[in-house]
């Protein structure tokens, strides 16, 4: 369970979900998807299993923890839900902005 760094890409061990780390705490944190530890993108290991229960992940949504020091961008959606240190991550709400460019 390494310390996560901004830019690190992870994949779910149990569904199609992929994320990119936007912000991470300086200490080690266990990130799971569908209840299983996430793996570095490109790493071998268990391949996607059947869909898990839960809300799953949505591409383009940012997921944050309660402390506000962990933020993941979902780059590929899947059936499993994200959690860190056992607590579910929530979608970072953002007020839609008008297009400025």
């Amino acid at each position, binding site marked *: 369970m390494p310390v996560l760094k*901004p*830019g*690190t*890409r992870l994949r779910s061990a149990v569904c199609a979900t992929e994320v*990119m780390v*936007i912000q991470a705490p300086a200490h080690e944190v266990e990130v799971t998807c569908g209840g299983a530890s996430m793996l570095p993108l490109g790493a071998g290991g268990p391949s996607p299993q059947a869909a898990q229960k839960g809300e799953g992940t949505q*591409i*383009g*949504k*940012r997921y944050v923890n309660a402390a506000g020091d962990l933020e993941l*961008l979902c*780059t*590929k959606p899947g059936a499993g839900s994200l959690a860190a240190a056992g607590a579910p991550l929530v979608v970072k709400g*953002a*007020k*839609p*902005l*008008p*297009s*400025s*460019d």
Partner: protein
Amino acid sequence: MNLAVLLEMACASFGERVAVRCEGQSLRFDELFSAAGAGARALRESGARHAALLDVTSPAVPVALFASAWAGLPFAPLSYRATDAEIDALLARIAPAFLVTDAERAGRLAGRASLAILARDAFLARVRSTPAPEPDWDMDPEAIAVLLFTSGTTGAPKAAVLRHKHLVSYVLGSVEFGCAGPDDATLVSVPPYHVAGMAAILSSVYAGRRIVQLPHFDARAWIELARAEAVTHAFVVPTMLARIAEALEAEGGALPALRALSYGGGKMPLPVIERAMRRLPQVDFTNAYGLTETSSTIALLGPEEHRAAAASADAGARRRLASVGRALPGVEVEIRDPDGKPVAAGERGEIHVRGEQVAGEYLERGSQLGPGGWFATRDGGSLDAEGFLFVEGRIDDVIVRGGENLSPGEIEEVLLAHAAVADCAVVGVPDEQWGEAVAAVVVPRAGASVSAQELRDWVRARLRSSRAPERIEFRDRLPYNETGKLVRRRLRAELAGDA
């Protein structure tokens, strides 16, 4: 973090949608992704340390931008308006470079050492006919994504550094992924070497919005392209909007598909935005304020705020139309006095900004961020009690008259409030008695007439007498550059020359 991830997501979610259209050529999102990969391969094989583009806007621009990100090289779009000598100096600073340029220049520059050159069409043909490698870009958030050479008034241009983390942060903070409908299209007419040109590509790709490119701006061509492509969104600089509104009025036509028009890159004269809002009542107008060094937009005045200000009978509320709105979420803005202390609401000072998207760094000079990550913009302005930001122009344009600092923006605002004034610029001119004297160049409104003395009295009645322009000249138009910035140094030189 890498900008290539944004394109990869777009490719996976709406790959078959058209990503970019230009003069009859189209690239879908999946084709753009593949071309970026093939471009990355070409960049790596060349041994270049930078990727440069010296050309008008075309599909080669988004391809080269994402190819550079994929290959891990900084992308440097250069101004095609620069002189040969200036371009040589810029190329020397980024050697060895891979350069995409127009056919004529490609021939002229061929054979240069430390330069791998491909003409635009040859580059596009190559990236469309070679397969892309597997996604293998680096994810270092600190890697440089874009280098933009800012137009210095003196000395060599500064190379503003935008790292992947800054641009990714800007996009994630301001655009909802996939928010565009399948018929959305945005018209891009700003040149690639302007930060708005880079931001337009990144935002549109992440939104899933088709980019329609106009290589050479002309109001008639813009209007015709907007109609032909059923353009729904566009970004323009103030001078472009003035000409578009004029041309629309002259022909009496409409732009039925257009829903959102954002503008920025320079000060918008109130009469221009008011005229455009009257001409295009169904359009949502957004004023975007930002700098190259802040990865584009940091504050915006949205459509509802435009309508509320325009409809208000109250002068204070109406004045908001001249504001650039409020800071984006995740961006903080502060106004400080010359000692660096924050000032109260309504007071003028220098605009400081901080946030994840704020780069504030130049090549060869390093980070310019102060304690706490604040960036001094060198723009003067004020914040009102509700956080609306008013920008008054560059601090370096301040006129020092008899030891007193005068803000051209403050005097211009008063002059623009006169019914007979369509546009104006205030600059300092050398003066034996005061060091600098206040000079105003005024563009009268069509059909209106006003005397210099009348305008002098108008300013004197509203500001201290030291601010009343000693010299007032009348002209048909002011010198704006192609990206909408008033070229004050030209006015200063002209006025000083015939003093």
